[in-house]
Structure formats: C-alpha cells, structure tokens
C-alpha cells in the first residue's frame, strides 16, 4: 500500500474515532463538504489546538472560508496550519490572553511583525485593551507600510499610553492619505508626527510637551 494511502486511511480512522470537537451541527454539515483527507487533516490540527489550550474556532472558520472560496484541500490545510502556528507564536509572545486578543495578535504576526515586538503588550494594565492597536497595526502593514515603521510606531504609541481613539484616528488619517495616492510609509511618517503622544488621562503628571515619562502606572 502506498504511503499516502496509509496516511489517508489513518486520518480517516482518526476522524472517525476522534470525538469531533464541539462544533455546531451546521458547521459540521459544511465541513462535510471537504474531502476526507482534508477533513482529517483539519481535525487533527484542531485537536492539536485543543491539546495546547489554543482556540479552535479561528481554525474552523478558516476551513469554512476555504470551502466558500472553493480552495483545494491542500490550500485549506496549509491555511489552517498556518493559523495554528500563528496562534501558538502569539501565545508564546503574550502569554495567556483571551481568544479575541490572540487572533488579533496572530494577524499582526501574519502581516509581518516580529514576535519580539509583541512583547511590549504583555502584562498590560488591567482594563487596557490592545485590540484596536493590533487591528490598526496589522492593517497598516497589509496596506504597504514597511513592517519596521508600523511596528515601531504602534509600539511607541502604546508605550506612551495611547488610547483606542488615538489608534482609530491614526488609522483613519493614514488610510485616507493612502487612498489619495500617498506612499504608505510616508503617510504613516506624516501622521505619526501629528499623533498626540500623551492622550488625555486623569492619571499621572503631564509635562507641557507630554513627552516625558509620565506613565499612567
């Protein structure tokens, strides 16, 4: 028996014997559209995620997206595997954070940021959410801002206590500049100079320039 056949059968057996991880019946129906090998491979990846305490919904979602896009099995498995690796890397960089934050961080890595650059978001203050920062970060790199520029801009803003509104405003401005035809890297450079370095905060002293290290705590 050829090797691939053996692997295929093994996957099939695993699919049958694995308690198919909790998923809605509708999802199960749609996943059934995958050929048996692909389905098996995806379920194995999902199973790895469970074993590592990583979220599984993003993985299934990618498989479903692949089905809609009529991608071939190998492409779907590759995409799911890539997401698993990204989630794993994000977990290593950020520690135990919730699923939403992990997937947002994974997108930042996917766009091209380095795991070390996520480190500044580890152990953040209570009540402070990095979702907006991550979303803008991944967007900027995807739109063509050089990775290093985007990463240093976002991490700097975060370190200086920027709030969600600051990130949103930065995104709005840079994106509209890019739409007008401005080079993405230039657009970011221009706008980052305008971004308030010290957003209004009730805690901590503020110097006139707002630049000295008055961290909120």
């Amino acid at each position, binding site marked *: 028996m050829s090797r691939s056949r053996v692997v295929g059968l093994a996957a099939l057996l695993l699919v049958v014997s694995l308690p198919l991880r909790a998923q809605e019946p509708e999802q199960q129906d749609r996943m059934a559209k995958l050929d048996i090998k692909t389905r098996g491979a995806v379920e194995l990846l999902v199973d790895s995620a469970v074993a590592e305490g990583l979220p599984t919904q993003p993985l299934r979602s990618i498989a479903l997206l692949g089905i809609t896009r009529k991608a071939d099995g190998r492409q779907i498995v590759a995409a799911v595997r890539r997401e698993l*690796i*990204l989630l794993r890397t994000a977990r290593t960089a950020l520690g135990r954070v919730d699923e939403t934050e992990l997937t947002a961080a994974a997108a930042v890595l996917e766009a091209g940021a380095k795991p070390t650059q996520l480190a500044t978001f580890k152990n953040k203050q209570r009540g402070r959410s990095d979702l907006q920062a991550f979303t803008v970060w991944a967007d900027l790199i995807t739109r*063509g801002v050089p990775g*290093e520029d985007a990463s240093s801009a976002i991490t700097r803003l975060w370190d200086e206590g920027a709030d969600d509104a600051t990130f949103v405003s930065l995104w709005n401005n840079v994106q509209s500049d890019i739409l007008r035809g401005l*080079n993405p*890297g*230039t657009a970011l450079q221009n706008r980052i100079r305008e971004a308030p370095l010290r957003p209004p905060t009730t805690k901590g002293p503020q110097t006139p320039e707002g630049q000295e290290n008055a961290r909120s705590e």
Partner: protein
Amino acid sequence: MLTRPRDSFIALDVTFAGRGWVIKQDMSDDAADVQRVLAGDVEAYAALVDRYYDRCARFAIRMLGNRDDAEDALQATFLRAYRALNRYQERDRFSAWLYRILVNQCRSVAARRAHRERVFVREEALLLNAPDRSPVWTGEDEEFVQRVLNELDPLLREAFLLKHIEEMSYEEMSALTGVGVSALKMRVKRACDRLRERWERIQHD
C-alpha cells in the same frame, strides 16, 4: 507660448541659507523642464529622466541589493514624480523632491519583498539582508561591497547611503526622510560602527 531653451537661466532662485545668500543655478534646467512638461511637452520629461536616472539607480541598487527590485523602484519613482509634477514647487530643489519619492519607493519595494518572502514563525533578521537574485555585477569588489551593505539594517543603510554616497547634508536628509537630524546622525554612526565591526571580524578570521 514661450519655449525656453534648456540651458538658459530663467530666474535665479535666491535663498538665504546658512550664513549667506545662495544662488541655486542648477535649478534653472530642472525647473525649465518641469515647466515644459506642464505646458504639454511630454518629451521634456525625458530630459529630467536622463539627468537623474543614473544617480537614482545607484541609490536604488545599493539600497535594495538587486537590479530587479531597483528597476521596480525606479520605474515607480519616475512615474510618481511625473504624476506629481504639478505639485513640485520651484523653491524646492528638484533632486531633493525626487529623492524623497525615490527613498519611499525603495522602502515600499523592500516591504513588498519582505512580505512575499518572509517565514513568519521564526524570529529572524530582516530578510532584506539576503540578496535573492543574482545580479549582473561589474566586478568582484562591487559584489562584495553590496553584500556588506546588504547586511546593514535597512534604516541604517538608507542613512549611510544618503550621507556618504549621495553626500547630502543632514538637513537635506531630514527634510527628505522626515526623521530628525540627531536620529539620522545616530543611524549613520551606527552604520559606520557596524561596518567597522565587520572589518575587525575579517581581520581576526
């Protein structure tokens, strides 16, 4: 409509720079050509391309490390410059204005290349370090020098090239890149340090 011969002075651009008055004579050709293009003489743009292409090509190749990417960046630069000609203001030096576009296009090309090539999982040095095509070099020395330059972090490389190859002043570099003078000085210094370190390593191999 008045057509101006290329090498006549139309206006002397006089500015106060540093401690004295500076007359920027070299601007007359560039400004004249820009005027001609805006008046509808598209072929006048060829004069600008001819004047600046080699210099820009040298920067692009040193910055990006290979010919294909450099050509991409150059094509994009001259096209963008053409489209933006109506925004060029004569009080700026055309070369500085053009270089701002060139530097940004090089950054874009580098970013696109990094996005294409990266393997996202590993914490690795920036992929821009590795030349990925075999360029047609004119000599062994040039290849060696390019490899050495490729090892520099892109921001350091950019600053080093602008300072020591394009021989710009820090003020010009700052206007061009939007980065402060002291940061640029630091980058150039660090680039030189790295190059020196490399030399020490070679010595001890």
